[in-house]
């Protein structure tokens, strides 16, 4: 009914938003953990993250699984050093 008016930038932005995902801080992959998961290991790089849910279906990284990620990093630094 309304005339074809150009959509405002504000409205366009809202349409483009995604949810349910977080990005791995190590490899930047977008990951979709199962709802409510407390720990999720990145299938791409093997780094493990402790998650919290700030809204229904909205995960975020609370912190690393310290020992797992530190071991991963030691390994990858050693490999790099060996090159």
């Amino acid at each position, binding site marked *: 009914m309304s005339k074809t008016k150009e959509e405002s930038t*504000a409205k366009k932005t809202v349409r483009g938003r995604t949810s349910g995902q977080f990005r791995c801080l190590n490899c930047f992959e977008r990951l979709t953990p199962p709802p409510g998961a407390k720990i999720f290991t990145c299938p791409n790089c093997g780094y493990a993250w402790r998650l919290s849910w700030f*809204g229904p279906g909205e995960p*975020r990284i609370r912190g690393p699984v310290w020992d797992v*990620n530190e071991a991963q990093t030691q390994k990858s630094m050693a490999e*790099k050093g060996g090159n």
Partner: protein
Amino acid sequence: MALSRKIAYIDLTNRRVRTAPIPLEMRRRYLGGRGLDMYLLYNHVKPGADPLGPDNVALVSAGLLTGTLASASARVHIAGKSPLTGLVGSANMGGFFGPEMRLAGFDHLVITGKADGPVYLWIHDGEIEIRDASHLWGHDAHQTQTLVRDELGDDDIQVMTIGVAGENLVRFACVMTSLKNAAGRTGMGALFGSKNLKAIAARGRMDIKIAFPEEALDYNKEIITQVTSAKVSKTMQKLGTLFIWGTTNSTGLVRVRNFQSNQIPHADDIEPESIEEEMIGTAGCFGCQVHCRGRYFIKKGPYTGAYVEGPEYTSLGAFGAEVGCTTKQTVLVGNHLVNTYGLDTLETGSMIAWAMELFEKGILTTKDTDGLDLRFGNDEAVIEAVHQIAQRRGIGDILAEGPLKAAEKIGKDAIKYLIHVKGMSNLHSDERPTPALALNIATASRGSDHLRSRPAIDLYHLPEKVLRKIFGNPVPYDGPLTSDYRDYEGKPWEVLWQEMCYETVDCLGICKYHTVFLGPNMPNFSEWPKLIYLNTGLEFTPKDLWDIADRAYTMERLFNLREGLTKEMDWLPDRYFDEKTDRGLPVVRGKSIDRDKFRKMVDEYYKLHEWDENGQPTEKKLKALGLENEPTHKL
């Protein structure tokens, strides 16, 4: 109408008040808020003035859109020559004071001279009174607000005030309003204290006319949805600004034990989610749907039962990572103390962390600290140090002087361990792996600063296409832009773009969480012209706003150069170049800043600004901005 608000010249020495209209021409050149304040700063402060002497000027202002239907338009700006750095002093805060000052009829206050005893200002419906404040002197920032409301018999009064730290001229004292809103940085509280100005109270019932009310309502709704649908906002609604810790500490981008590491592992107790367990909810500033202010009661210790707001992300460094503490109780109590004393939490924590490293290195001993055991991780010592700074007792009296003056007093190698730029301490962030952020703190106009030009979204690994869209508007940019935050290339433009973006919101009186700071798809130059037009009827293009921001930022640069800024001061502490990061993810581990590449970045940044190789704006640039004849004393 918003544009009918006046400027008031308040001479505290002679106790005289004069008011004048603000010419539209000045609005078109500076909008208001920080922009117009920078004009006033350059024009009203005598060159070389002592920041704590009567020749300094305290400027208080509302932004062009403060109080209007522009989401989160709560900000009030305070400026003067900084008692901390001797350069631009400038800080703004939310809460409710800014809109109330506008409702009371004023947009700008120019406060000069020094009162012969404690005073406060009472601004109401177009009038300003200078009132005795002897009975308020010595009271903390929370008590003072209640006392003023009681005295004037009105709970709707909004008060900005200094605490004991400002009275004691702690060089990083701030001005506070509500529970936790602070014009925190550059020591504006000490500036108030030096003028015997304890507080400013405002209550007004004058209409702020909206140019196109129905359309402004609809557009405000759109803007709010744009902001609150973003993941960062939803996270902040629950965790406040603490949420940032999840990314920074997990990656390895925080500074620990002053500057000895870049990640604090296993500190689960101070994680945002752990602190959130203490919160009873969050509070919002005027008209804001992000409501990022945490609310909690202290449950243990001597402050049990105190109602507190916060803590902010900054306090996680001040009472956590930087001082090597990992218990939330210290963060919660430390936050309460800086809010009541009126201290900049960031500078306070940084000064204590620095003193702790000096203690560790033996430059300070228990002899210097009257027995205070300034070991990293000593929670009690950290809290005691806050008291000592605010009350200027013991070692606190030296730390209260701020980084450079304290380093001079302590002598030895103390200065080597300072994490500062231009005499202002850095946030608890470690920029060694992130050249863009390093350039931001090195060049920001008020010293090491994350709110002047930080391209925080550089950390998000955004595709180049997205970066081009954001950073290519409203001024075309076809140089390099890369998704990798470890790169040096293309970053100077990001820093410059953010400078213009933050300057504009500070001129408008809008909170930075409602623009491109922590989220990439937030309102910016594309949205602001419509927002301004619907609220005020003034027409600007995106490029007009950019030019205004450029003009205001250049005024800051001119002021800094006049007060002694040199090219050497647009630089980082040696440790950024000489020591490598020891922790964090592989992308950030073993990193330091490369001197030569960084030099090139600074040069490039100057060039993009059209400043010469010494960082001086060129004659051509000044002419283009119409600044070749400053000071022009039009206001």
